[in-house]
């Protein structure tokens, strides 16, 4: 136990190294080719020619605009929905119900949700079948352009339904830490209508707590590949999709342009973040006065209705698309406009099952290892703060969010080169480490506020009773934090299960996970088999969340007050 403090103090540095070295190294591995340096491909002089090629790409402006607008709009809409909903329904039964639905919703991998949404909303999809041939009169599917519309509306919908659950989870976790309940009650007792009370008394305290998750959402939305490929426009697509296409171009000279484009993507994402940051400043300034103007009603009923309706819509869309996945996995030949496949068949499941076990085990193994490592590092880093008695330096905190803010397409190709130089064989270990790169920030994000806000008097009491730091950590802090730790683990596990690009690149494609299978099947056009894999991909994280919910009740059944925040 004498080693406890030195070990804990070393962990933040370990975490920072794990997160920053691959990202910075990967970026360097992209920067060099962007400037013309990649001797393996004959690039042995520094030049800006590849930037000129990139600038001459037809439609580049549209690609950048799409990335920016879909990233910002989807984040804004998601945040608005979440805030309106919490504001209108805080301390009601609706919130408790949504809280229960949240975990399975959060567990839906992006690709699976996008495939489901696409099927729901295409002209031959479930929604259109619901009204065909009567009352629409459509004997054959109508020919309208959605999803894939040039404004990216379909893409925005797809992003919003995945971001709402995430932001909701982050907000619900942050609510107790800004004394939301007490503030709300005070404001209500002063006669403020529910939403107005929330907006004036809680929101200014809540937003800073969820700012980093919001930034992560912006970065993801402006640079994501899978959702954009499935729901976004194709001529031209958002920038990140083009980057991946150029990286995979058989004309190897395109690697240089792809590297330049990857850096441009980084710039686009940073621009989106900067624009949001400016927006924050602007809103804070504009609404500063209205916080204290004493008005107690601000169109409450209307806003509450909007919040409820949009949340309901988001849940219905996601639910409908999951229903679509289930139906497709059970369908034989299913022509338009039949609403249900008949007869239902287990054909796809029977065909898929023999091949399912291996990827299932592989996915679970990598997910558990990556989550375990991330959890240990996150808890260690947070405990180190407690030992030092002060929070993490601002720059260190930023490093933690580096992999979430730097678009994966910008540094993963460079990372593969580093992997070769470091002699790390492509395989489970490399993939697990790469997953940790994305899992650790999310785990930290989920856990940090609960950890830091834990009442310091517990520690003081324990210390005064003669407990060492190690025993204080093991016997007081960990038990008190069981619920947030398990939730963070479930979030981390879900993040790991959904990873596609890192799995593919760091294993040289040798490892088959549910996600790599689902994505390669989605490219093959057999919707039944793709649906089976998407559902399996969803099952694992759902199991993780179920465990996170039930384990504390088993472990803590002799302690009171630990389960309720």
């Amino acid at each position, binding site marked *: 136990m004498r080693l406890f403090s030195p070990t804990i103090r070393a962990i933040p540095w370990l975490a920072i190294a794990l997160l920053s070295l691959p990202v910075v190294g990967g970026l360097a591995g992209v920067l060099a080719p962007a400037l013309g340096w990649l001797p393996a491909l004959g690039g042995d002089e520094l030049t800006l020619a590849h930037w000129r090629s990139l600038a001459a790409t037809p439609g580049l402006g549209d690609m950048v605009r799409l990335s920016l607008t879909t990233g910002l709009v989807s984040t804004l809409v998601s945040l608005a929905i979440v805030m309106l909903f919490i504001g209108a329904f805080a301390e009601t039964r609706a919130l408790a119900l949504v809280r229960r639905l949240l975990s399975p919703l959060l567990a839906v991998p992006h690709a699976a949700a996008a495939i489901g949404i696409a099927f729901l909303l*295409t002209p031959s999809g479930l929604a259109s079948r619901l009204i065909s041939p009567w009352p629409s009169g459509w004997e054959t599917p109508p*020919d309208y352009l959605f999803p894939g519309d040039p404004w990216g509306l379909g893409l925005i919908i797809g992003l919003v339904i995945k971001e709402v659950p995430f932001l909701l989870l982050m907000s619900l976790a942050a609510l107790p830490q800004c004394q939301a309940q007490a503030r709300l009650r005070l404001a209500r007792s002063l006669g403020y209508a529910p939403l107005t009370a929330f907006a004036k008394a809680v929101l200014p305290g809540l937003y800073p707590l969820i700012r980093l998750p919001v930034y992560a959402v912006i970065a993801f939305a402006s640079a994501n590949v899978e959702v954009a490929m499935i729901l976004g426009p194709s001529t031209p697509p958002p920038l990140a999709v083009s980057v991946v296409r150029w990286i995979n171009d058989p004309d190897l000279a395109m690697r240089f342009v792809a590297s330049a484009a990857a850096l441009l993507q980084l710039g686009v994402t940073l621009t989106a973040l900067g624009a949001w940051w400016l927006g924050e400043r602007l809103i804070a300034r504009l609404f500063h006065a209205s916080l204290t103007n004493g008005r107690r009603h601000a169109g409450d009923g209307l806003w509450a209705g909007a919040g409820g309706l949009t949340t309901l819509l988001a849940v219905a869309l996601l639910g409908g698309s999951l229903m679509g996945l289930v139906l497709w996995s059970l369908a034989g030949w299913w022509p338009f406009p039949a609403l249900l496949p008949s007869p239902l068949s287990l054909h796809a499941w029977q065909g898929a099952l023999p091949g399912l076990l291996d990827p299932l085990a592989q996915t679970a193994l990598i997910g558990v290892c990556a989550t375990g490592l991330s959890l240990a590092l996150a808890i260690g880093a947070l405990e180190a703060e407690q030992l030092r008695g002060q929070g993490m330096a601002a720059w260190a905190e930023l490093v933690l969010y580096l992999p979430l803010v730097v678009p994966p397409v910008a540094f993963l190709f460079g990372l593969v080169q580093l992997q*070769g130089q470091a002699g790390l064989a492509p395989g489970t270990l490399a993939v697990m480490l790469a997953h940790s790169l994305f899992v650790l920030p999310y785990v930290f994000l989920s856990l940090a506020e609960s950890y830091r806000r834990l009442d310091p008097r517990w520690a003081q009491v324990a210390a005064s009773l003669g407990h060492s730091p190690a025993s204080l950590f093991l016997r007081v802090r960990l038990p008190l934090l069981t619920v947030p730790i398990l939730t963070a683990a479930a979030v981390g596990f879900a993040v790991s299960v959904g990873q596609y690009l890192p799995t593919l690149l760091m294993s040289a494609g040798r490892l088959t996970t549910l996600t790599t299978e689902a994505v390669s099947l989605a490219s093959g056009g057999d919707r039944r088999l793709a649906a089976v894999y998407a559902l399996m991909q969803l099952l694992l994280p759902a199991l993780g969340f179920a465990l996170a919910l039930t384990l504390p009740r088993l472990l803590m059944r002799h302690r009171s007050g630990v389960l309720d925040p």
Partner: protein
Amino acid sequence: MTRIALLAHRHRPAASSRSLGRWRGRSLTGLLSAIALTITALPTLAQDDALRLDDWAAIERAAKGQTVYWNAWGGDSRTNAYLAWAADTLEARHDIELVHVKLDDTGTAVSRVIAEKAAGNLDEGAIDLIWINGENFAAMKDNDLLFGPFAEALPNHDLTRPETNPEVRLDFTVPTEGFEAPWGKAQLTFYYDSARLETPPGSIPALLDWARAHPGRFTYPLVPDFTGSTFLKQALIELATDTAPLYEPAAQSDFAAVTAPLWDYLDALHPHLWRDGRHFPASGPEMRRLMGDGELSLAFTFIPSEPAAAVADFQLPPTTRSYVLDGGTLGNVHFVAIPFNSSHKAGALVTANFLLSPEAQAKKLDPAVWGDRTVLDMAALDEAARATFIDDRDNPAALPADALSKTRPEPHPSWMARLEATWLERYGSQ
């Protein structure tokens, strides 16, 4: 079937046409002498790689116990099942563990080899075998990323009778020079729903008339998807006044003049396409899904057996029928290649040879398994082996037996690159 290439051809801006320079200065005599040279150079090269390609028994001994990582497109359950069968058989016969590394894009494997070369990994590469053809092959060959020449050293290669079937030595007019071994054949095949469409258009010009009469019921995959680009080439071959320049590097002729009829045609066709030509399916398989959803009435594929197989798998209506255009359609051969830094070259060689065996080729041809056409020449086989290639099953969705005799050769790959670039300039950012 070339799925490898099907997904691997991607977006390129106009500026990349500079890379076309590498095709300049290649002539047929140059090709032939190159082939002759590589064949005579075999033993020397083999020694360099510490593998004697002329001692097959030694290669088979060296291959025992090796694990071969085969990077191959993994988006089709039938192809995957065939590869699993090949893995089982190789394990039993040669004690080789064959691992199918499932790609959604062959470019990923090419990237991997480049990254390894950049990192100085010259003999412990992660990839032992790649299913490849077309531009990916040309790119790897040009950048010295391939092991070989090895193809002519495979004992079963003689069964393809390359003298009478020169297509097994040419990949999009580029001589393979033994750097890849033939594996199967593909041909552009159209299919339609006979319940919605009685007489399908038999030529590219007739297709335009048909699309005008049935707006929104036809489309092609987004260029540069392989299937989409193949449609462009098919249209160009039918519309061009003189097709001779298409079989030479594009830089040697007036590209704008040769392709003008194609762009006029597409300008006329696009307003009548699915989604008014403002959005395109991402791939051939997505187009098949749209047929299954009833959004399209007519589509095409590069895998002749695909429509019949998809009917059997409940993905297409039972009323599906397939055909090739009256004047014939594009066809090509697809191959397997070994990266220069493969860790298990002996195992990869034995695998490539096994894939060329009559047993493996006949199994692959079986429509119930995959339906991919053989590269073997029936005249090179004995009677018993020939008999295993005969299929007498009747399937209304399958092509008539004589349809595939109408095959047009692929243009030089530089045309594909230029066509894709110009298409993207004209239609890629509307």
